[in-house]
């Protein structure tokens, strides 16, 4: 199934799963609880069907799936390696082949620094970056409106479906970085797209075929949320929030994450992103392009707790 552009009238569903106590002592996380959070999240995504049925409804059994993580921030503020691996393993329980699952980001070095153990053993869950020999970037540019970029061959060729498994955080230029901006790590020149609060660049990039035709699901890692001074780690503005956000609508997932960041900011007495002139307007641009819902009026948020 290709997500493609959404029907104008459709309402989008976003599932927020709280995992109270998922953080256990000495920086560890409760792996069983994480699995339960995935199960519950997938269940709610598709009106209570079983998690395996939900997985089957999103991916066919031979699908090559990229789990695009965000490891730019280093060990303290990247998509947690344990979570990525648990998700990949859990997906195999739903009938997907381990060797067809690839956890990836821009570079091997960044993945390693974030705590990932790289592997390309055939038959195992794969973990590596675009700079792995044999991967690399396309020679040809993909052009769409404000975008002219070379795609990682992982995104353009190796995978047939994509999950944006991003960390949710504040971003000094974009307002927030979450599932959509995570795909900046799939192109060779993201540094060129940070003007004007990354608008319309993030939306224009998402609209390109290598993403639009493959993206099927956003999962936002909100176990720890950097709600100010992101995307770097600052303990003072980092909140243990213990949530995951799931949605097949990439815009709605991020829009929900944005509202959550605003709540955390308000409780800390910080101004809104709009007041700081860095509202993530790219989400509204994405909505206008039909990529999903940014307006909360059209987003059905289902919250549950494990």
């Amino acid at each position: 199934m290709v997500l493609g552009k959404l029907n104008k009238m459709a309402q989008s569903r976003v599932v927020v799963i709280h995992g109270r106590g998922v953080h256990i002592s000495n920086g560890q996380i409760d792996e069983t609880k994480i699995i339960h959070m995935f199960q519950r999240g997938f269940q709610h995504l598709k009106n209570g069907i079983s998690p395996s049925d939900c997985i089957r409804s999103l991916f066919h059994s031979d699908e090559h799936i990229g789990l695009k993580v965000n490891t730019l921030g280093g060990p303290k503020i990247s998509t947690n390696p344990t979570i990525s691996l648990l998700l990949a393993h859990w997906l195999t329980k739903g009938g997907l082949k381990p060797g067809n699952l690839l956890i990836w980001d821009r570079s091997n070095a960044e993945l390693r620094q974030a705590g990932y153990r790289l592997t390309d053993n055939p038959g195992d869950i794969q973990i590596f970056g675009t700079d792995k020999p044999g991967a690399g970037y396309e020679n040809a540019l993909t052009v769409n409106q404000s975008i002219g970029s070379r795609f990682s061959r992982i995104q353009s060729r190796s995978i047939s479906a994509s999950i944006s498994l991003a960390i949710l955080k504040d971003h000094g230029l974009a307002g927030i970085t979450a599932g959509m901006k995570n795909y900046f790590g799939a192109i060779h020149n993201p540094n060129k797209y940070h003007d004007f609060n990354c608008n319309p660049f993030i939306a224009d990039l998402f609209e390109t075929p290598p993403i639009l035709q493959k993206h099927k699901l956003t999962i936002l890692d909100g176990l720890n949320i950097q709600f100010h001074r992101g995307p770097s780690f600052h303990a003072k503005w980092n909140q243990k929030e213990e949530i995951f956000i799931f949605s097949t609508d990439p815009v709605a997932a991020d829009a929900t994450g944005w509202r959550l960041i605003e709540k955390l900011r308000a409780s800390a007495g910080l101004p809104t992103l709009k007041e700081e002139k860095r509202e993530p307007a790219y989400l509204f641009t994405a909505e206008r392009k039909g990529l999903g819902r940014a307006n909360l009026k059209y987003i059905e948020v289902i919250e549950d707790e494990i």
Partner: protein
Amino acid sequence: MDRRHFIKTTGGLSLTAGSGLLNTCSRLYAFDTSANLSRKEARYYKKHPDREIECLLCPRFCKLGDRERGYCGVRENIDGTYYTFVYGKACAVHLDPIEKKPFFHFLPQSRTLSLATAGCNVNCKFCQNWEISQVRPEQVEHQDFPPHQVVLTAQKYDSPIIAYTYTEPIVFFEYMIDTSIEAQKAGLRNVVVTGGHINPEPLQDLLPAVDAIKIDLKAFSELFYTEYVRGKLQPVLDAIKIIAQSSVWLEIVYLVIPSLNDSPEEIRQMSRWLKQTAGKDVPLHFSRFYPMYLLKNLPPTPTSTLERCHRIAREEGLHYVYIGNIPGHKAENTYCPQCQKLLIQRTGYSIGEKNLEEGRCKYCGQPIPGIWK
């Protein structure tokens, strides 16, 4: 554009593999080269609380948190200290004629050791070298080419000039200025080919180290700079003013793009401003556009448009106006503004007749501005 094509189109005499240098690197390379990036502390930046920094080198003033990289893609904040990754990391090295830069009033026919690193602080939709300018250093083949080796190589190949060119030398400022200083000590000249997107302080520091600067003035409208360059016009105009007031030789290139920056009014305003700011003797080159990179939907500039630009600039009183990228056109030649006789005849990058003596017109004795020896 593959490597062979790049070398061909740049028209230069590339150094061979035996010289230990790479000729160019137009291909994105899929390997972990992070170990081969330099880590030299950048000049011109300010430290802010919480390990944040603000780069003061160019008018973008990138403000970056820990582990973030600037717009140019070659500088990164690591734990509150700002580093350049391209110091001594050349990704393109050629021997070119000086006319190719182009400089027409600077040591004609001299061989120029030309070099670049990855990166650029703008993103022109018509960039000819985007495969090295619009990438990060780890995405492109590069090799160690420290300043002293640049100087030795220039000497070895009888090149009296070193040119910082192809991409945007401002983003490899530290490498460029250190190399220039070493080159000066060795009696070599330094020329810079730039978009001029630099802040006044670093520019003032650079001027004593270099001999000539060519500015690519890409239009005379802020809108064009926002839309097609992703930069700003005013800082470029400010840079031209500063250079014009210095003793560094200045030439200007204006790439004429059909329908985007070629209106007679814009050309007239630009020429008028240039004459007021840099004087009537500053060489101005109108260059022909070819469809490239993200601007492939426009035709090459018609010769008639270039001739119209040439006429307007001459009407505004500029003495040395040239047409580029049309080999054999008579506006490639230099004529004496006094007696109108032919002084230097050019076809592409080669020179035919030359009627200059000691920097003066051979016929009427009119001094011709430039660096001639």
